[in-house]
C-alpha cells in the first residue's frame, strides 16, 4: 500500500487494502465512504473490536457529541481496541470528534473519560467567535514540514466544531488553525493521524490527506 502518493489510486484487492471505518453512529459516514470510493480505496464499516484491532488501516469518523461517541465506542470494547492498535503503531485516522475522544476528557461531556491516547482536555471555543465554527479555515504547519514528511500540506480545510484542543500534547507533531486563538487542526505521531477538520469534505486537498493515510504501510513503518 505504499505506492499511492497522489489524490487517486487504483482499486485495492483483499482485506489488507481495505480501510475499516468504525461505525460509531450514523453522522456523515456516507460522505466518508463516498470519499474513499472516489479515491479508489476499498472501505467498509465495522463494529467488531477484533477487526478494529487487527485491520491494516482503521478510520474513526467524527460523529455527534464527545459523550455519545465514547458511549458508542465503549459498548463493544471498541475504545480498548483503538487504544491497543494505536499503542502498536497501526495506521489509524481519527476525524473531528474522533480526534477529541483520543484526549482525556472534554468540556462538552463532563465526567466522561476519553480514550486517553494523549493528555489534555478538549475545550469550547471562546465566546468572542461564532460557535460552532463552520467553514474553511487556513491550516499551517508550525514545524514547516511538507508531504511526504507530513500527512498534509498547508491549505484550507473544512471544519464543523464547537470544541477543540488548544495545544498539541508533547511528542506529537501538529498543524494549526485560528478561531478566536490558535487550535489544533491536526496531530500525528507514527502512523496515527487525527484531524479536527473533515478531510472527506475538504475537496481535493482533503482527499490528498486521505490518500496519504491509505498509502501508509500496514506494519506501522511510516515516513511521517
Amino acid at each position, binding site marked *: 500500500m505504499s505506492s499511492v502518493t497522489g489524490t487517486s489510486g487504483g482499486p485495492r484487492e483483499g482485506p489488507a487494502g481495505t480501510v475499516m471505518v468504525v461505525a460509531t453512529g450514523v453522522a456523515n459516514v456516507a460522505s466518508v465512504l463516498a470519499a474513499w470510493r472516489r479515491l479508489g480505496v476499498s472501505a467498509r464499516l465495522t463494529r467488531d473490536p477484533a477487526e478494529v484491532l487487527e485491520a491494516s488501516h482503521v478510520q474513526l469518523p467524527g460523529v455527534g457529541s464527545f459523550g455519545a461517541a465514547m458511549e458508542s465506542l465503549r459498548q463493544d470494547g471498541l475504545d480498548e481496541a483503538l487504544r491497543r492498535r494505536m499503542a502498536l503503531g497501526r495506521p489509524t485516522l481519527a476525524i473531528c470528534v474522533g480526534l477529541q475522544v483520543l484526549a482525556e476528557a472534554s468540556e462538552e461531556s463532563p465526567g466522561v473519560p476519553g480514550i486517553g491516547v494523549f493528555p489534555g482536555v478538549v475545550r469550547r471555543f471562546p465566546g468572542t467567535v461564532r460557535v460552532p465554527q*463552520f467553514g474553511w479555515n*487556513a491550516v499551517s504547519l508550525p514545524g514547516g514540514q511538507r508531504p511526504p514528511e507530513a500527512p498534509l500540506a498547508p491549505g484550507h480545510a473544512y471544519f464543523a466544531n464547537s470544541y477543540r484542543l488548544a495545544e498539541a500534547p508533547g511528542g506529537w507533531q501538529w498543524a494549526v488553525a485560528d478561531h478566536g486563538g490558535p487550535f489544533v487542526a491536526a496531530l500525528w505521531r507514527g502512523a496515527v493521524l487525527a484531524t479536527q477538520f473533515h478531510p472527506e469534505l475538504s475537496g481535493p486537498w482533503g*482527499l490528498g490527506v486521505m490518500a496519504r493515510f491509505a498509502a501508509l504501510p500496514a506494519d506501522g513503518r511510516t515516513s511521517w
Partner: protein
Amino acid sequence: MVTRRVIPCLDVRDGRVVKGVRFQGLRDQGDPAALAQSYEAQGADEIVMLDVSATPEGRRTALETVRAIREVLSIPLTVGGGVRSLADARALLEAGADKVSVNTAAFEDPGLLSAIAEGLGRQCAVLALDAARRPEGGFEVLVRSGRQRTGRDAVAWAREAVAAGAGEVLLTSWDRDGTGEGYDLDLLAAVCQAVPVPVIASGGADRPEDLVAAFRAGADAVLAASIFHEGRWTVDRLKEHLAREGIEVRRC
C-alpha cells in the same frame, strides 16, 4: 480565521434543479449532481439542496438525488425541505447529507431541533428561517414554503431555535427571494446580532455587490441560486471580486 462561505443553492424537484420567484413559477435549471460538481470545481464552499417537491414520491426521489450528489461531491452538503422528524433527518444523512435544515416542522415543534442536535450533533441541525417584513415594522416568520404567515417575530424565533439546538441559521428573505433586489440587510443584521451561531444570508442576490453587502452586515455565508445557474457569475470570479473588496474567502 475561518473564511466567509459562498454557497450555491439547488432547489430540486423530481430530480431536477428548478428556480422560481417568491417560491413560485419554477423553471428547469439542470441536473443536480452535475451542477453540484461544477460548483465545487469553481470553488464553492458548500452546497445546499432544498427539496421543493411536495409529494411522498418527490421525497423518495430527493433521497436518490442526495446519493447522486454525494457520489461526486467532496465539500459539505446541506439538505432541507419536508424534514418532519429525526428519522427524516437520519435518512438524509445516511444518503449523504452532512447537515439537515428544518423549517416548518421545527417551528411547530422546536423539540425537533433538540432531537437532531442530540441524536446527530448540533453541527447537523440547521434552522431554515423564512422571514417577511411586517407593515408595522420588524419581521415575521413564514412557514409552509412562504404560504403561511405566523405572526411570530423572526428574531425571537431565531433565538429560541438556537437555544433548542440549531447550530446554524439559513435566513431567507421572502420579500427578496428570486427578485434580484439584493439581500434584506436589516433582517440579516438583526438575526446576526441575536444569535451566536453562523448565519447564512439567502434571498435576493443578483450582483457581487449584494454579497459584499451581506458579509458587511454580518453574514458568515451567502447563499445564491440564479446568479450561478444562469451563468452570469462563476463562483471563482465572484470570490475574486469578494477578495478585492477585502472579504476573506478561500481561493482554489
